[in-house]
């Protein structure tokens, strides 16, 4: 019986592998991505399972629009410059506005030659494929605020040390990666009506991951952000999953990138008065969001 079941499993796995091998074969032109001016249109819902305050709603539909100035996805480097998104949540009677000046998912350090000369990922700087296990990431000037709560959060700077489980300059890095990270940020939450603010140093721990099947990308992230001064009483947990596919449309060229997908996010803020981010329900501990996103790029450098 066990033998039969084992053979069946092997057969099923074998068939699935064959199908995957065919369906998920790499496209021959799978170049590094550099997108200039990507619009971002989303529709979905946001809500909280928490008991609402007063007669406030638990959830709302959401429509959003945004822009990413530039996005580069090379071996060993994933970065965005100037991201902005405005999300209207009518049932919650609020609009969330968020943006980041520069967001560095990962900038990995490799070696030009294994025995010499460390180098950073960059368009004109190549590192060898067996290298790139360490790097750094973070963000500069991240801002998010709600119109109803009057609570505006700013992350002036975040700096993280990043490890890569696989070499960042190896050919698979743009398809499969797991990047544990540890660092810290300097945040400030402004309570506009009260004209007060709290300055908070936070530790950041978590990971970014990416798995690719054909043209579909699964990108989970996780962050644990305890306050440096009160880690037990003031912490945030953020988990996201994006499932995206990349195709093309005609904007500047006839083959500019068009990204379509689903974004899921969950966050827990132990102290909602210190919470901020694009996907928070004001005053809630738990926030959840799901949205479909269509992101047409105006100018893609190279084929999409």
């Amino acid at each position, binding site marked *: 019986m066990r033998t039969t079941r084992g053979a069946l499993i092997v057969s099923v796995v074998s068939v699935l592998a064959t199908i995957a091998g065919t369906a998920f*074969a*790499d496209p*021959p032109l799978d170049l590094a991505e550099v997108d200039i001016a990507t619009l971002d249109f989303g529709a979905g819902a946001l809500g909280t399972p928490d008991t609402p305050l007063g007669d406030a709603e638990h959830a709302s539909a959401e429509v959003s629009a945004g822009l990413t100035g530039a996005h580069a996805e090379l071996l060993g480097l994933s970065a965005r410059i100037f991201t902005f998104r405005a999300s209207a949540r009518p049932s919650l009677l609020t609009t969330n506005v968020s943006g980041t000046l520069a967001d560095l998912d990962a900038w990995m350090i490799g070696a030009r*030659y294994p025995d010499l000369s460390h180098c950073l990922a960059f368009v004109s700087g*190549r590192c*060898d494929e067996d290298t790139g296990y360490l790097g750094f990431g973070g963000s500069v000037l991240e801002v998010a605020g709600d119109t109803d709560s009057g609570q505006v959060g700013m992350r002036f700077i975040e700096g993280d040390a990043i490890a890569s489980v696989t070499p960042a300059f190896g050919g698979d890095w743009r398809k499969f990666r797991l990047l544990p990270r540890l660092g810290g940020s300097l945040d400030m939450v402004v309570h506009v009506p009260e004209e007060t603010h709290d300055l908070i140093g936070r530790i950041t721990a978590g990971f970014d991951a990416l798995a690719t099947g054909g043209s579909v990308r699964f990108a989970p992230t996780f962050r644990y952000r305890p306050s440096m001064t009160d880690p037990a009483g003031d912490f945030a947990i953020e988990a996201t999953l994006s499932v995206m596919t990349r195709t093309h449309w005609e904007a*500047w*060229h006839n083959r500019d990138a068009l990204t379509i997908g689903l974004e899921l996010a969950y966050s827990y803020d132990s102290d909602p008065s210190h919470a901020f981010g694009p996907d928070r329900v004001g005053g809630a501990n738990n926030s959840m969001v799901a949205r479909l996103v269509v992101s047409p790029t105006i100018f893609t450098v190279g084929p999409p």
Partner: protein
Amino acid sequence: MTITGYADLHCHPMSHLGFGGPRQGGLGFFWGKPTDPIDQALPCCKVAHAPLGRGGVVPSLTEKEQPNYDGYDTFVSWPRHSTVIHQQMYKDCVERAFNSGLKLIVASAVNNEMLADLYDNGYPVDSTDGTSIAAQIAGMKAFAAQCSAWMQIVTTPAEARAAIGAGKLAVVLAIEVDSVCGGAMRRDGDLDPAKTDAIVQKYFDMGVRLINPLHLVDNALGGTAIYDDRFNLSNHYLFAKHQNTAAEPWWYDAASVVGGGDLADVRMLLGANRGNDALINIYGKGYPTYMKSLGLVGHANTRTMTAAGKAFVAAMMKRGMLVDVEHMSSHTLDEAMTIAEDRTYPLVSSHTGFRGIAVPRTKTGPNDPTWVPGCANEGMRSDSQIKRLVKLGSIIGIGGHAGLVQELKIDSSKGWARGYHYARSLGVERIAIGTDMNGFPTQAGPRFFRDPLTGELKHAEATDTIRPLKYGSDLVPIVNKLLTRTALGKQSYDYNVNGLAHYGLLPDFTLDVALQLTAPDDLGDFFQSAEALIQVWETCEQLAVP
């Protein structure tokens, strides 16, 4: 009757029909046609090459262009000696070379599927080598028909003699592509040797009489000579395109050169040329760690000629075709020469350089980053390879791009003259030029620049003492006509400061080389090179199996 005049063993008059050919909206990766009225054949290329245009960024990564992209009628931007994606063989240029001593050309169909597919932001196009070959062979026949008063395609050495005797330029049709047997034919075992005869026959029936079995990547016939990381990207890309599930490696299977033999003097290292970093990064697949240590000597291909490759070469020899060994890896070339030696069959090395005079790379370390332009690579001929080829009665074409050699800092005709001298010192008598015009390599640059203050010509190379060409008083060799400046549109070309900007400047180039050679190293053998190639071909024909 002995023919006086020279042969160009390697050029690409129909490049505009390669690389996916002309696209909708007038786009084209390789820009400009050799025929048609000049305003229509060589117009401004901005629509096709500007980085923000529909053609995408690949042209600007391939060649640094002038901001105006002009063409006709100022020709300020191109053609110039450093161009690689603009027409340099306009019919008037070819005719001028013909009228000044050029008697025979080998017109080779060329292609690069990766560049074709990258161009136009990856817009789908039939870029396969087979389609490209058919288009270019048909195009060359149409070109010859249009210029039938002075040009003729020849398929036998007797036809070549007759055509030249009738006052025409003899044109031998040829093929130089990455996958001459088809895109999926990438490795030993992919191609049944028994099928090679039909493939060769197909090309023979098209009128092709010379083939490079290898070009810039490995294929089912053998290994390629390694000399540029960019072509390693092509090697990988063709697997991704045609054999997506094939077992690795898709990259060059290279090894560091150790010990003696033909490869002892190779100094080129894969992964060392930082000029290729941007393309490698954009390709985005990682790049093999060829550079295990800065102390490495050089890289060469471990692949040799396959069973299918041996059958392919034998099928060519059976038909008396010219076998061009250029681009073969050292091991593949060794096999080709062994096959040829079995029947004393002369070969063609159509556009090569010489490791013996290559630019030395002596230092290693971060301040001398192991990459020196012109350093010895597998694509150049070693002394021992030259001697084996000479023993077979082969003909050697020195590449028009072979100008950067030891002790010279400028790529100019001086390097070619040095190569000619060196080849003769190794006993080469059948010696020609292989311009590779309209191909990827740049051409010989000028020996002079004009002083911006005085307007006087000044040597670009400090050690150069040879005088410039004197238009209006110098005589073109062989034909003994007064050398005059040639023009395209409003652009008048002075070889002294323009170099070999287009094919019509070949007479100027040959005179410039002649100025640098003295007896017994004069250009006598070179000016007999059309005869030499025909003699090689006649020997091949005699050894053909009926």
